[in-house]
């Protein structure tokens, strides 16, 4: 008996176990969901569907159906509306979407109770969906929108980008990224993997050069300029006390922190005391950063609860 409970506890810890406890949780959730579906209309999304028609008349597209038009296209648009709107119908796809979002939210939150199969399943779905999404997105925004529109504009216009200007033409410079891309993919080849190092070197070198100048300007020179401000601040009404105190605090804070990071001199005596003050300034900064981070995390929880109560359970 003791042995069985130890095994059970272990399997529960690594998240792979699916014991009686979780079966009860599922049971409670199913009963709750059925009750919420009927009592609260939980997660039900109603939509109003409209048909939009465009007709091509004399090379121009006009709204609506026109007799004798060269071409005519129609599609349906659905807008989420209240259930009591005339003509509103329950949207299966959107309702499933809300339920799925709610269930996945609860699965992720269940990690707070400990690692479990629901959390792992939700995590795997997020990873898989993200990977697929990025792959498709990169194809359309990187390969089509950047490479193909400049290398084969006519074909791309006919196939994927109808708004591509007629003036768009073959741009020879885009052969360089095409070749570099091919070299980068060479890494997958069993032989000649070193070829991929050349485009990688190009990317690293270009990025380093690209970033160096901007960092120098905005993060170094501009910061020095911002620190050198008048300590005696005056305005339309003469001397301003608090802005002057602020300028003094900024100056002292910067100097103390710089001394703390100055390691060519032993931190003893006046230097040691200044360095200690620098530590306090850093601690205040870290504290402020941590406080803001906590605030951000609570907001995330608020937003998720807001979704669960408002869009899923219709409680608000």
């Amino acid at each position, binding site marked *: 008996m003791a042995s069985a409970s130890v095994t059970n506890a272990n399997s529960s810890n690594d998240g792979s176990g699916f014991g009686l406890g979780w079966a009860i949780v599922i049971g409670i959730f199913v009963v709750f969901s059925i009750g919420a579906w009927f009592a609260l209309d939980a997660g039900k999304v109603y939509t109003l569907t409209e048909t939009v028609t465009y007709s091509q008349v004399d090379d121009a597209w006009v709204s609506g159906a026109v007799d004798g038009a060269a071409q005519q296209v129609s599609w349906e648009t659905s807008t989420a509306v209240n259930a009591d709107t005339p003509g509103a119908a329950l949207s299966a796809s959107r309702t499933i979407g809300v339920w799925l979002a709610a269930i996945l939210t609860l699965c992720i939150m269940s990690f707070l109770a400990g690692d479990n199969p629901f959390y792992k399943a939700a995590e795997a779905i997020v990873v898989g969906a993200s990977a697929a999404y990025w792959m498709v997105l990169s194809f359309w925004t990187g390969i089509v929108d950047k490479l193909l529109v400049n290398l084969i504009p006519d074909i791309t216009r006919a196939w994927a*980008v109808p*708004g591509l200007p007629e003036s768009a033409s073959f741009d020879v410079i885009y052969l360089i990224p095409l070749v570099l891309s091919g070299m980068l993919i060479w890494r997958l080849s069993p032989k000649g993997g070193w070829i991929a190092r050349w485009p990688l070197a190009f990317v690293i070198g270009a990025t380093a050069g690209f970033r160096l100048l901007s960092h120098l300007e905005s993060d170094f020179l*501009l910061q020095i300029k*911002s620190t050198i401000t008048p300590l005696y601040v005056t305005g339309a009404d003469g001397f301003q006390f608090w802005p002057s105190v602020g300028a003094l605090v900024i100056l002292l804070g910067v100097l103390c922190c710089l001394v703390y990071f100055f390691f060519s001199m032993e931190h003893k005596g006046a230097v040691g005391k200044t360095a200690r003050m620098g530590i306090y300034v850093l601690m205040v900064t870290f504290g402020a950063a941590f406080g803001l981070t906590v605030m*951000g995390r*609570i907001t995330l929880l608020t*937003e998720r*609860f807001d979704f669960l109560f408002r869009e899923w359970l219709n409680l608000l």
Partner: protein
Amino acid sequence: MLNFLRNLDRRIVFALMGLAVAVPILTKLSFPEPVPKGTQPYKVFDQIENLPDGSRVLLSFDFDPGSQGELLPMAMAFTRHCAEKGHKMYFMCLWPLGEPFVEDAMNIILGEEYPDLTYGEDFMSFGYKPGNEAVIKNSIVDLKALFITDSRKTDLNAIPMTRNIKSAKSMDLIINISAGDPGTKQWVQYAATPADLPIVAGCTGVQAPLLYPYIPDPLKGLLPAIKGAAGYEQVMMDAYPHLADPAVIGSKYSSKAALQRMGPQFVAHILMVLFILLGNIIYFIDKKKGGA
């Protein structure tokens, strides 16, 4: 009792924190949000408000659903403010999942609340462009080489409000809503500083300490996290009282979204302070007993 508190199960802490956030949401608990003059929400507000009506404003929604809790209220508030002032809005995003928020801002906020505004004449979207800081850098050189079409695949020369635009230098203000990299830091580094463009931003709490050093030059104003958004919403409602209309507050993107989220925030912070105090009291009791 002391022993129980000393070994308090972390799940009890999670549950209490959950209640501290859930109960204020369900009871719609909120508190007044006084915004002193001269603070960041006012500075951001003034930058947009003091532009002549019809100025060109570039709004970059550089965030995704992971940070919508903090950033979506301020993104929608920025959109409302620009619409109230009749500014020409140029939307874009450097995060792919920011595009649905741009569409919602155009379709729901502008389409439903400001039906007189027309796509292509009063607002438009460049959509998402991959390339991070390279996109920002190129945007101040040649926008039309960067974005050949808008997000709806229409030629930029066929859109009235982009026909005469050369680059982001044509903008009167950049508004950036940022959840990380690329975001406000990159807009400051690659657009605002080299092109001397005025910029205001809203960011997540995690980012705020890293962005404060850029205030006031070149960053003219910053809304840090939900607190900044709540302050901005309050200033907006003071200036435009019709935004306090129940219909606007009750809409999908409420004009009080951030203010409503400050209620749970307040209760959660009280609970956290209590936990910190409790932990310290137990620590000092143990120390006095010689157990620590």
